[in-house]
């Protein structure tokens, strides 16, 4: 059937099962939005306040639902506004497809109005990107883009479509998603790889070798990384931990992959890791990291990380093996499948003495209880008491993020949406919008700090317009707390340009956007405010005044040995 490029785009989105798109229109993408107008009963468009918000929303949607998130933006500034969002998705392996339109082909490369070489700009932060010059290549390119975004180690893909390709007509034949690998460039891609179309099996000999290593180990430790979350391998991972009877350290990206309240969980590992996790890393004789790339926030000092252990990496991405930490063994494969195969082969083991050693250390920071002020711990404990167990959390970046991850015990993959790798301040609100749109039946809690919130709080307009009942818990300490903490601990307390002794009045901001706003200074009031906000079913901003010198504890300095706590 002959149709315009814009319509082919809509049809291709439907092929992929896309029901929601986040975006912001502009001149070059007009034809696409015109077509969207005709498809609005099948494809819901969420108009954000800024393209960055759209990209974070698509990312939050993807992370919380496991589906590919989609966002639209126009050429030039529209496209470059996506870049931070794309990089955030890239660092955390989140499947996002960004569709931008560029100027007409004859104008391309001539510094035309709102023209930018966005494929060039985003090359380092996308899994792959495409410039579609003509309508004939559009459908195949889109199918390939979605396949690549969600396959293997997921990641963002950008498709830049020259405006003329949205207007031109071409033959379009619908193709089921399962058949996409048989057409176009994607088919060649499939053919040239050495194995067949379906997910190949992990090497069984590698699995057997790991089983032997596990049987020989007296002090095994598991690390639950982001790969467990992306693969939705919660059940398999828990089964493995139970079988080996090993303590489990959890990374920021792995939060939710293993239930935080499980008796084997030792808490966060790394820079702000618990005593138990970090001591276990140092003492273990076998460290099995599942879907973990040993970033510098986990393996702070790669040479001495797990120095008494044989390190085994299970990852879908071969290039992660031995990148940061030298390993003794690795298995390439999807976490879910590898763990299934391991579980089939493993007997029930018992490591009581080792567990006793590990759990003799604290798995959780005991924050001071203060009479005279509200502490972050009190706020988070109230959240844990009041909020339903299946609620989705989106955080921004900084102290509040670490406090939240340390305190709230996530129970399933996708429950926590946080920017771990890129550390994007301003990620939270957009991500919360995406998570709420993708999970309309769940409560979404957005945890943020005053620095992060101010970066992208314009998205409150989106929250209000679409009636998304997101509850924002804002930790206001009047400073860029995490940076201040570093300044206090490592720069002799010179708090250079980190004090945020300025507006706005966040309660008034919330009200200006038509949302409920409330400022609390006492823990009891916070709990009341939170209950009230949840009961109202409407979006609310609850500002929690906390002390400027609250710290995230414990902390190991960057590049230090994992048990060299600066503060505990």
């Amino acid at each position, binding site marked *: 059937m002959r149709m315009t490029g814009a319509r082919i785009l809509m049809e291709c989105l439907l092929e992929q099962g896309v029901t929601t798109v986040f975006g912001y229109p502009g001149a070059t993408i007009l034809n696409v939005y015109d077509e969207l107008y005709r498809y609005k009963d099948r494809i819901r468009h969420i108009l954000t306040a800024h393209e960055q918000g759209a990209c974070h929303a698509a990312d939050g949607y993807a992370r919380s639902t496991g589906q590919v998130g989609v966002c639209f933006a126009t050429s030039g500034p529209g496209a470059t506004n996506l870049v931070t969002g794309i990089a955030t998705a890239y660092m955390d392996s989140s499947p996002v497809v960004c569709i931008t339109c560029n100027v007409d082909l004859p104008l391309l490369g001539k510094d035309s109005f709102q023209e930018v070489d966005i494929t060039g700009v985003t090359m380092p932060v996308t899994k792959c990107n495409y410039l579609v010059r003509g309508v004939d290549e559009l459908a195949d390119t889109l199918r390939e883009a979605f396949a690549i975004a969600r396959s293997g180690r997921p990641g963002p893909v950008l498709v830049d479509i020259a405006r003329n390709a949205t207007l031109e007509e071409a033959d379009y034949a619908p193709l089921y998603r399962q058949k996409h690998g048989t057409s176009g460039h994607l088919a060649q*891609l499939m053919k040239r790889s050495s194995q067949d179309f379906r*997910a190949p099996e992990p090497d069984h000999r590698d699995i057997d070798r790991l089983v032997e290593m596990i049987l020989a180990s007296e002090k095994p430790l598991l690390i639950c990384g982001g790969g467990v979350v992306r693969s939705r391998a919660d059940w398999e991972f828990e089964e493995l931990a139970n079988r080996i009877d090993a303590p489990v350290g959890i990374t920021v990206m792995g939060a939710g992959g293993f239930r935080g309240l499980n008796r084997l969980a030792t808490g966060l590992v790394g820079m702000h890791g618990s005593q138990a996790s970090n001591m276990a890393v140092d003492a273990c004789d076998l460290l099995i990291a599942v879907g973990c790339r040993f970033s510098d926030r986990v393996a702070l000092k790669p040479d001495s990380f797990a120095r008494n252990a044989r390190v085994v990496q299970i990852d879908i991405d071969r*290039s992660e093996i031995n990148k940061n930490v030298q390993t003794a063994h690795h298995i390439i494969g999807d976490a879910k499948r590898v763990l299934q195969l391991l579980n089939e082969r493993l007997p029930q083991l018992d490591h009581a003495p080792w567990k006793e050693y590990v759990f003799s250390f604290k798995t959780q920071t005991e924050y001071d209880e203060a009479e005279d002020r509200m502490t972050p711990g009190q706020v988070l404990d109230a959240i844990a008491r009041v909020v339903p167990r299946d609620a989705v959390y989106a955080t921004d970046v900084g102290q509040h993020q670490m406090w939240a991850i340390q305190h709230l015990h996530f129970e399933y993959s996708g429950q926590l949406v946080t920017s771990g790798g890129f550390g994007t301040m301003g990620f939270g609100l957009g991500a919360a919008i995406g998570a709420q749109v993708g999970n309309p039946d769940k409560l979404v809690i957005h945890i943020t700090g005053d620095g992060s919130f101010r970066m992208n709080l314009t998205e409150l307009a989106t929250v209000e317009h679409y009636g998304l009942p997101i509850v924002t818990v804002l930790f206001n300490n009047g400073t860029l707390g995490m940076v201040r903490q570093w300044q206090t601990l490592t720069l002799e307390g010179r708090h250079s340009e980190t004090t945020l002794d300025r507006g706005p009045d966040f309660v008034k901001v919330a009200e200006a956007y038509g949302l409920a706003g409330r400022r609390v200074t006492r823990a009891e009031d916070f709990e009341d405010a939170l209950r009230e906000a949840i009961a109202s079913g409407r979006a609310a901003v609850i500002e929690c005044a906390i002390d400027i010198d609250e710290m995230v504890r414990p902390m190991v300095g960057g590049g230090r040995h994992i048990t060299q706590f600066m503060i505990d």
Partner: protein
Amino acid sequence: MNEVKRHTLAVLVDNEAGVLSRVARLFSGKGYNIESLAVGTTHDPAVSRITIELIADERSARLVSMQLRKLICVHSVKRLDPERSIRRELVLFKVSAPSHEARNEIIQIANIFRASIIDVSTGTITLAVIGDESKAEAIQNLLGEFGILELVRTGMVALERGQYTIDEQTKEKGEFDYGKNVL
């Protein structure tokens, strides 16, 4: 392990626009200087072969070749062992040859090095030499006396000796394909 030396990477890629910059940016992004780079199509017109030489330690060379393998446009990457491969580049020299004697001497040098003389004008001779860097360097030193006006290299190209090819199926290659395969 940390010894800095020359590494030769052979890379098979899609013969498409933008592929070279995707490959090259992996080096620039990590601050590695590409010593030499040569690109051309192969017997399959849809596939180009890139030969890259870089000076780096073992770990960095390994890391960059692993990340190259991840690119969708890359079919295969092989690090060529200098002991087991043939490396050649073509170097063109334009040398000043103002006098009859100078011209004769240059022709003699060319003969010794099996360089071919591809252009002569009053005052200049242009030579083409094929070889590895030691041969090019030797002739460059000799021609230096006459005054080299211009010099251009194609960049090193390399193939493995014997029956080995870049498409060899190894376990590592299979492991890299895994990530691309789960489509």
